[in-house]
């Protein structure tokens, strides 16, 4: 019975751990996408170098700005030529340099939502030195929508897996406790206190939950090692996932045992066939 219980708990905790792992990776992808959010501010022609330096300092001191990168007219042109190198006729057509110098402004975490980006870009637009300020409004709005949907889906999945784990594990523990109903009955009969009756079950439940947690954390780590070696290198925060499954297993084992032994103990009424 104990092995079956550990097996079922292992499976539930494995699902829980896999969900945690997936969530960390999802957040990693979202962060990467958000890091790409930037504001491009294009400068007027022939600004003195000193003025550009001052402007750079002003931009850096703005709330929400993480970094500022200056691209000169020449750098912009060579970058453009690099991008269109497969179309030599187009390069020949560009006789003069029509591209303006610009600042690429990256924003801090918490300033990448459509509202915040718009707010910062409007503040940047106030400076007369800029011809235009762009931030890819439609792309940011789309990213924000996708992030919100993924986040909602992740929470819903988390709730379903969380509830399923609690349900399966508590019922498994209840079956193991019920298998020892006679022991509880005899303990009550000879005057054992509720604490004495509960303690061994809670201990056993915690140990079973912990063992199942270690096993599922270990299997997830093994899967991470194999996928890293042969397929994709996922992000795997060892401590959070392994400790997470072990702690979740111990807590579920403990609480599940406590509730199961309490209800079983209450149910016992020294049944006999007589009245």
């Amino acid at each position, binding site marked *: 019975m104990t092995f079956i219980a550990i097996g079922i708990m292992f499976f539930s905790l494995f699902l829980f751990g896999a969900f945690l792992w997936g969530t960390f990776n999802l957040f990693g992808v979202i962060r990467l996408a958000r890091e790409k959010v930037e504001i491009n501010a294009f400068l007027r022609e022939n600004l003195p170098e000193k003025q550009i330096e001052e402007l750079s300092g002003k931009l850096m001191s703005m709330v929400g700005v993480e970094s500022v990168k200056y691209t000169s007219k020449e750098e912009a042109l060579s970058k453009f030529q690099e991008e269109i190198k497969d179309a030599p006729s187009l390069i020949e057509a560009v006789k003069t340099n029509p591209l303006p110098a610009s600042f690429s402004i990256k924003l801090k975490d918490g300033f990448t939502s459509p509202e915040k980006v718009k707010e910062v870009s409007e503040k940047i637009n106030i400076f007369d030195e800029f011809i235009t300020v762009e931030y890819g409004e439609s792309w940011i709005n789309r990213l924000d929508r996708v992030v919100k949907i993924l986040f909602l889906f992740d929470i819903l999945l988390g709730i379903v897996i969380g509830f399923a784990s609690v349900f399966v594990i508590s019922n498994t523990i209840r079956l193991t406790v019920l298998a020892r109903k*006679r*022991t509880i*009955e*005899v*303990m*009550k*009969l*000879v*005057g*054992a*206190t*509720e604490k*004495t*009756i509960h303690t061994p079950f809670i201990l056993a439940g915690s140990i079973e939950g912990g063992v199942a947690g270690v096993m599922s954390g270990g299997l997830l780590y093994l899967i991470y090692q194999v996928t890293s070696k042969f397929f994709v290198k996922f992000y795997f925060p060892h401590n959070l996932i392994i400790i997470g499954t072990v702690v979740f297993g111990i807590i579920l084992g403990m609480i599940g045992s406590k509730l199961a032994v309490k209800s079983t103990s209450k149910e016992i*009424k*020294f049944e*006999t*066939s*007589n*009245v």
Partner: protein
Amino acid sequence: MIEIRNVSKRFKKAWYALKNVDLSIAKGDFLFLTGTTGSGKTTLLRLIYMDIFPDEGEVAVAGFLSSTIKEEEIPFLRRRIGIIFQDFKLLKDKTIYENVAFALEVTGQSGKKMREKVMKVLTLVGLSHKRNDFPYTLSGGEQQKTAIARALVREPFILLADEPTGNIDPEGSEDIIKILQEVNTAGTAVLMATHDVELSKKMGGKFLNLEQGQILKT
């Protein structure tokens, strides 16, 4: 020692398992509680070890009152009472010795003193030579003797026996009652519920006849 005062117990709202029962059990009493199935014998015993509580009246056992006892005090009441059942309630995965010792272990006793107590009661019921056997290798009578030993190991002031001979052949039944009589002679009160009036008459003792939840004669 045990006072049952004007006690009524209902099941299914209006069905009286016991009605206006008065009973007093003193130290050293041996009482047969007779009556047909459904007469209220088991209900009376359950009220004494406070597995259930009266709807009317009061039960007083060794200073504990049914009206005021707290849930956490019930184990301490049970430690002063020995209880045996028709189905023995032994643990299959424990030996005879371990089954008896279990009653002391769960209340925190261990060591040499515990071993002495266990061996003493096993000798009293004549099972010391089978101490390492498992319950399923024993006859019904021997299993009930083990249950008696477990009930006595805490030196209770009363032994409650609910149909203790119900699953045992006539010869074994007489054996069980003889042991109960010996226990009684040593100073422990015995209250034995049985529907086997003939057997109890044969063994002698005081009678309490229950019918439809009421005491007919004592």
